[in-house]
């Protein structure tokens, strides 16, 4: 096992949307095995990147580091110019507002309707009500939910709920969209539609990072693919494909 505490030369790049420099993450669970081990990666503006790997490969840990839910044991995590190793607690909300986040299980506020879920993201950044009333219907229309803004989210299909989550992630016009298994709970038809939507968002200029283990969509879309295995990047290819580890 490589020594994760070894001192390394730090590299700076302020243009990168995501810049991981020799990042390692160890949990205090007694196993001693790092969840991420010496990971370095750069993702630039406007890129569409898949992060793939089997269970236990470190994908979830990576997403948590990018959201500053966790901090790296070693190395530097820089996202949107924020050094997440040094960011102050009170600055974390401000940082997260610049990121759109989409989860596998949608994570919508279940007791609120579609409009309220999307508007919530705007309320957080204190957008005036007048503007909110323009922005929310516009973003809902862009994800194909124009007529559903009064519907309770729990009565929507899985695909529709994921669209609401994407609309919520997009409404504040983030520079970076992080998607953690966005199609994990969807059928193939909805999976394709959501991936097309994410591609459209990327075409409009947003950097999109999708963590997935769905080999079909990865192979179909021909985007940059970073493959993780046991916490280590084993490949990073432009127009890559899902690597079968067996």
């Amino acid at each position, binding site marked *: 096992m490589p020594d994760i505490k070894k001192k390394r030369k730090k590299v700076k790049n302020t243009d990168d949307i995501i810049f991981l420099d020799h990042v390692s993450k160890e949990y205090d669970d007694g196993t001693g095995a790092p969840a991420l081990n010496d990971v370095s990666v750069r993702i630039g503006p406007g890129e569409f990147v898949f992060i793939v790997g089997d269970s236990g490969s470190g994908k979830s840990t990576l997403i948590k580091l990018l*959201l500053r*839910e966790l901090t790296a044991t070693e190395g530097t995590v820089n996202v949107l110019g924020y050094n997440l190793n040094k960011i102050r607690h*009170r600055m974390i*909300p*401000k*940082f*997260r*507002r610049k*990121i759109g*986040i989409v989860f596998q299980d949608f*994570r*919508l*506020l279940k*007791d609120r309707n579609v409009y309220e879920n999307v508007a*919530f*993201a705007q*309320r*957080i*950044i*204190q957008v*005036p*009500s007048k503007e909110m009333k323009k922005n929310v219907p516009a973003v809902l229309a862009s994800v194909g939910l124009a007529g559903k803004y009064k519907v309770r989210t729990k009565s929507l299909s899985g695909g529709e709920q994921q669209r609401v989550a994407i609309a*919520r*992630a997009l409404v504040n016009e983030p520079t970076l969209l992080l998607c953690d298994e966005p199609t994990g709970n969807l059928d193939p038809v909805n999976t394709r539609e959501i991936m097309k939507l994410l591609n459209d968002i990327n075409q409009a200029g947003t950097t999109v990072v999708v963590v997935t283990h769905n080999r079909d969509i990865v192979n179909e879309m021909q985007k940059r693919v970073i493959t993780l295995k046991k916490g280590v990047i084993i490949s990073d290819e432009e127009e890559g494909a899902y690597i079968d580890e067996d």
Partner: protein
Amino acid sequence: MRISTFFYSIRQGFRNIFRNKSFSLASIATMTACLFMLGVVVCITLNAQEAVKTAEQGVSVTVYFNEGTSDERIAAIGDDIGRRVEVSHTDFISADQAWDSFKTEYLGEFSDGFTENPLANSMHYEIYLSDVSMQSSLVTYLQSIPEVRKVNQSKVVADFFSGFDSLVGYISLGMIVILLLVTIFLISNTVTVGISVRKEEINIMKYIGATDFFVRAPYVVEGIIIGAVGAGLPLIALYYLYINVTEFLTAKFSVIFNFMEFLPVDVIMKQLIPISFAIGIGIGFLGSFVTVRKHLKV
């Protein structure tokens, strides 16, 4: 903070109550039940203390004077006694009043044979105490006055009341403290459970960039509202119950309640309202504040 955010938090606090009806009802019911019980104990305690105090006020010390003490000197001593902290009030009984009273009580028509007042030397003060536990210090003072011939005191009665008063105080305090702890435990548990089930909602808010204040404020508002309602309901119930129960008892057991009176409901409420609201709103606020904080570390 924008003013719109402030009103948004208030609005969301109210909405949360209706969104989570079962939790809100459970919290309000727990709080109402606990504060009602506490209120009942406070009512009983206050009335018991009042009854003891009323009985204490009937305990008096009698002071007699040496023969030949001038009326002026007796009046001056009376003024001095009246100014003492142990004394509630004094009644002066002249020799004639003492004889009249004796005749009426014991002699009746047989008193005609007396041409002179046999109690000519029995003018005295009946001294009523503000606190029976201070009787001995008053007696010591009275005995130190040269013109005082004799001091009559009912030491046993005074000691009994003094002890009983302390006993009532300790028992009441003990019961109130225990009930208070149970109340705090039950209410804070209900609030904690109610908010913990919404941990995911808090996480979502944090993930999309809500500040701790923005996440916490509606829950704190919710806690305060539940606390206020949970404190108000038992007060309303106690108000009407107290009036009806005291009326019923006074009518039904008039013999007993000739000697003591229940405290008026407004006196009881003056004590209960701040206690109840302080506990209800205090626990509602603190419970939600602390519980939400646990889930903010995302």
